[in-house]
């Protein structure tokens, strides 16, 4: 049951106008999200921790102060279950942290900035365990189902965030994108999501997966909302040495740009055998729309595209094996009783706490980094990464924007890939180029398949080029109606 007049179905910009005019209160808006979660989330399993009492208290404070300085003041949101918030259960959807519910003693920079803007955190969303996966099937809380077809996955790893926003459980959500974990679930659920330039948003207080690739970004109902959230969370953070101190443009104020003369590249390597025909059709139609808006669309080449995925699946597990070393059952997480000695304690705590995909990546990474193999795997992958980066550097000399599918096909069925890790990894094939180059990339809805499933258009821009990327996505969105389609739940 979906009601269009439900407050939780508003976009951020719509809700902000209504809050400012006192047509609605933040408490009403927050309550509407809570009601929606309580009525439909049992079908989806998108929200794994609920902070409703605290959220309503915060909303009341916002209403009482009645200052609407930020477009995010009084706006309820969901955060992926890897964002630390002081005093709020955060478990990475892993038994490692679930067994003694981890309560972070500090806030992530991103949730802190959102709180400072007056946004209301209402709960934590489902993710693959420590963000490792493309379907939320590795979550210790079970899979998140796609609101468009509950027999299918919502994508991953930020599947809970995408399903939650597609079904109006909140106004926006935070995700993380290491190898596509914002863009793919956004495309599977028919909403918008952006992976910013690496170094644009702070990773502090977000559970790490692969530190040189992890990025922080929003999942929203519209491109305008992406701009609003991104400008609030982006920028230098002394607590994350990889963040840039270059100024953050006011993205939301620069959306209305003409596409005349914008050079759009269509990389031929992304239109390969195995690409779903509905997906291909939708992307080619999107290219025509961009051209009709004044852009010049030209086929071009990113020659090392086919190596991005393999590069990712070397570098990522290597960094995973290092990052997961922190889970030793000593300072936090799963503990075991009556160990023989310290080694036995570590081994049992980790073996009981981690799920299969996390173990698989730790094992691959440990192997690739072990004596005698470093040059063959890690160093080799870092060199191929250089070539992938050069592909994009060269391409952006001649193009302002590169477009492609987000995923080879729309959402797949629950369980389709669980016994074939390589098939699951192949879902990332179009997203890892941008990951390697550290450039911004987003997903916007661009079609519905014959089976009734959303299709996402990927747009990639040059490093630090979020403003141009968002304005192009906005122009496309305004010229189409795909973003207005909602699942019938």
């Amino acid at each position: 049951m979906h009601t269009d007049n439900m407050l939780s179905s508003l976009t951020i910009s719509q809700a902000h106008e209504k809050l400012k005019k006192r047509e609605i209160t933040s408490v009403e808006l927050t309550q509407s999200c809570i009601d929606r979660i309580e009525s439909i989330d049992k079908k989806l399993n998108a929200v794994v921790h609920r902070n409703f009492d605290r959220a309503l208290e915060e909303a009341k404070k916002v209403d009482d102060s009645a200052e609407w300085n930020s477009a995010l003041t009084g706006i309820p949101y969901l955060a992926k279950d890897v964002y630390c918030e002081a005093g709020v259960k955060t478990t990475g959807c892993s038994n490692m942290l679930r067994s003694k519910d981890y309560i972070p003693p500090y806030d992530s920079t991103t949730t802190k900035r959102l709180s400072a803007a007056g946004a209301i955190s209402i709960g934590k969303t489902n993710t693959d365990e420590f963000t490792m996966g493309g379907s939320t099937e590795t979550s210790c809380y079970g899979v998140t189902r796609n609101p468009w077809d509950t027999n299918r996955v919502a994508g991953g790893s930020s599947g809970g965030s995408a399903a939650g926003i597609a079904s109006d459980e909140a106004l926006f959500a935070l995700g993380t994108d290491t190898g596509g974990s914002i863009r793919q679930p956004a495309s599977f659920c028919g909403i918008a999501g952006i992976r910013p330039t690496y170094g644009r948003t702070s990773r502090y207080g977000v559970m790490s997966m692969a530190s040189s690739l992890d990025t922080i970004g929003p999942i929203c109902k519209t491109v305008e909302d992406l701009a609003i959230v991104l400008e609030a969370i982006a920028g230098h953070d002394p607590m994350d040495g990889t963040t840039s101190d270059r100024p953050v443009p006011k993205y939301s104020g620069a959306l209305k740009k003409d596409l005349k003369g914008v050079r759009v590249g269509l990389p031929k390597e992304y239109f390969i055998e195995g690409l779903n025909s509905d997906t291909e059709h939708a992307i080619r139609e999107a290219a025509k729309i961009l051209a009709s808006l004044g852009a010049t669309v030209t086929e071009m080449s990113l020659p090392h595209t086919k190596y991005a995925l393999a590069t990712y699946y070397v570098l990522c597990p290597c960094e995973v094996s290092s990052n997961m070393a922190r889970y030793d059952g000593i300072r936090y997480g799963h503990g075991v009783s009556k160990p023989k000695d310290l080694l036995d304690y570590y081994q049992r705590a980790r073996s009981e706490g981690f799920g299969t995909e996390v173990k698989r990546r730790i094992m691959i990474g440990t192997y690739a980094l072990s004596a005698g193999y470093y040059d063959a795997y890690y160093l080799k992958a870092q060199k191929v990464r250089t070539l992938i980066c050069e592909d994009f550097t060269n391409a952006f000399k001649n193009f302002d924007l590169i477009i492609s599918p987000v995923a080879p096909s729309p959402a797949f069925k629950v369980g389709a890939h669980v016994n074939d890790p390589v098939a699951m990894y192949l879902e990332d094939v179009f997203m890892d180029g941008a990951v390697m180059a550290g450039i911004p990339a987003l997903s916007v809805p661009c079609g519905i398949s014959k089976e009734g499933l959303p299709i996402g258009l990927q747009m990639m821009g040059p490093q630090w080029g979020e403003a141009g990327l968002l304005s192009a996505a906005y122009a496309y969105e305004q010229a189409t109606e795909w973003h207005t389609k909602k699942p019938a739940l």
Partner: protein
Amino acid sequence: MLRTMTTLTKDQVLHIAKLARLTLTPEEVDKMTKELSSILNYIEILNEVDTTSVEPTAQVTGITNALREDAVKPSEAKPDDLLGASPLPITEHQIQAPHAHG
């Protein structure tokens, strides 16, 4: 370019597990041996790429040595909250870890 098949042995898998501080059940060893080999085979595709005289990329922001003033600042996290997160017993305000030598 010639592609070689990478096949891990069970002993190699057990050795990697030990390095990673994981204990695998016999079923997990079988499954991992097969799956890790298939992933490593997929990764072999990188050998097609000529990387002679290509420099490795470790990061893309260009930021190096992000320094800050070496000043003591109070932490948001309170020591008792940090101790409270441990699954182990707390003795004299310290985490009591198992003995390293049995």
